[in-house]
């Protein structure tokens, strides 16, 4: 029997340790799709080690906020895995700390901290990136809200654990259109939030293809490493939300035995790699859009989420 606090800690540790690896897998798949050999899967870990060994440079005139932001963002990304079903299908003691809105707010707080640090530097490029991310982030909010409404209408709560349990409960739940539409809408938001489509290029340095990346241009050394690590963790957290709550909440530990928890970790890694591969395929199949076409992309996601609520509200879809 593994004590519950330990499982709770394991959830955080799994996300912390696996996140760069998932990014490595995606980069590898992407390279293969483009006919390149690609970097090692462990490359993100080597990058982080390199960055941690470097010195920290701070721009003139910045206050303590500049250095506190990466640490704060990392703390946020470590908090969210406590609130969502990462390894277990039963509620863990701290899982009641916040609902799905609370998790969203903590993710938003992390992004806000990074944006504040970027504006703190006074560098025009970083500021531009921060303001773009915040502007376009605001237009995905309504989509997320409608997805949350769907969850609330389906389960009667806004707990991620409750939706996962409902999906596991019956096959009727899986084929109902509201569930499928909400999952599709969420997938579009995740593609957007992790910088896959519609505009961002993941590996290039083309300035129009960078929204998230330019915000951290003034950071260096261990703090840059924390920010990079944080963004891979955000990606994995969103993947887990999609997999373990909406699409495939199977393979989670049903009890506290060591074997079940170990299997759950392996299942999580496998499912995340599969989703990462799918995302890489989607990313490489569609052309990037111009910056101001983002609204078209988000309008599609919004349509899916609104239809999900409509089918539920007018007729029990």
């Amino acid at each position: 029997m593994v004590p519950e606090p330990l499982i709770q800690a394991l959830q955080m540790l799994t996300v912390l340790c696996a996140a760069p690896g998932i990014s490595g897998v995606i980069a590898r798949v992407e390279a293969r799709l483009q006919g390149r050999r690609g970097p090692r899967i462990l490359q993100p870990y080597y990058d982080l080690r390199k960055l941690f060994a470097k010195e920290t440079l701070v721009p003139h005139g910045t206050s303590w906020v500049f250095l506190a932001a990466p640490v704060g963002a990392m703390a946020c990304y470590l908090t969210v895995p406590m609130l969502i079903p990462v390894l277990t299908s039963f509620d863990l003691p701290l899982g009641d700390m916040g609902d799905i809105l609370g998790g969203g707010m903590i993710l938003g707080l992390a992004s806000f901290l990074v944006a504040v640090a970027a504006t703190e530097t006074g560098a025009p490029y970083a500021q531009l990136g921060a303001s773009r991310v915040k502007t376009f982030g605001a237009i995905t909010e309504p989509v997320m809200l409608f997805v949350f409404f769907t969850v609330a209408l389906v389960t009667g709560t806004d707990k991620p654990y409750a939706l996962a349990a409902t999906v596991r409960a019956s096959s009727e739940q899986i084929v109902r259109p509201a569930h499928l539409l909400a999952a599709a809408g969420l997938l579009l938001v995740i593609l957007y939030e992790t910088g896959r489509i519609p505009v961002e290029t993941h590996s290039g340095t083309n300035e129009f293809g960078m929204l998230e990346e330019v915000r951290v241009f003034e950071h260096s050394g261990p703090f840059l490493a924390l920010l990079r690590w944080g963004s891979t963790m955000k990606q994995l957290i969103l993947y887990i939300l999609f997999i373990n709550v909406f699409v495939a909440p199977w393979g989670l530990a049903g009890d506290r035995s060591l074997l079940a928890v170990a299997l759950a970790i392996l299942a999580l890694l496998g499912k995340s790699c599969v989703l990462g591969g799918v995302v890489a395929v989607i990313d490489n199949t569609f052309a990037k859009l111009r910056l101001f076409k983002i609204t078209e992309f988000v309008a599609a996601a919004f349509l899916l989420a609104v239809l999900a609520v409509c089918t539920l509200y007018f007729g029990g879809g």
Partner: protein
Amino acid sequence: MAPTVTPPGTYAGVANVLAVLVLLSEFAMLRAALLRAQMRLYAAQSLLVSVLAAVVAWGRDVPELYVLAALSLALKVVVVPWVVMRQLRQTRTEIAGSGVLGVASEVLVAVVVAVLAFFATSRFHIASPALPTTALGLAVAVIAVSFVLMIVRRDVVSQAVGFFSLENGVSLASLVVAAGLPLILEVAFLFDLLVAVVVFGVLMRVHHRRARSLSTEHLTKLRG
């Protein structure tokens, strides 16, 4: 905690998903920039309606719907797109006329219209033995969105596609409210569609010969 909205069952769920896909393909037509893409989407939508008819026939044991499904498959998935595609090949126009609004605004307007359709049909309290009520709301939403498509697009082909898909919405609605509708009436509807195809074909041809384009923007005078 008990779910607030109980799941409708597997049959109703599958039927609803098909109906939702019909509505989504209508929205995709609204976004599509290429005429060919619009036509393909229309064929896909018709296919979905036929599959839904077959599902109802199987699930609710209405054998004459199989005939309807086969007829609409032959006519709307094969014949109509083929005829229109041939016309398009002759006119050598590929890009649909731009809409009056941007794509994002078009979609938002259509979402509002679709939600209105949902509100309107939810007042009727129609319980159908064949399909869940959601499908009726979706059917009316398809009809409403196809009106938006005809209004905001400024080329003949988009307007024709809008009209044809309107008919898809109507057949979806008829599956809900009158699945056992006499077959002869349904067939009459389908031949109505054929007449529309002929009329729109002539319109496309004449308009293209006069204006050298398929855009309706040139139609500013009452007499040519």
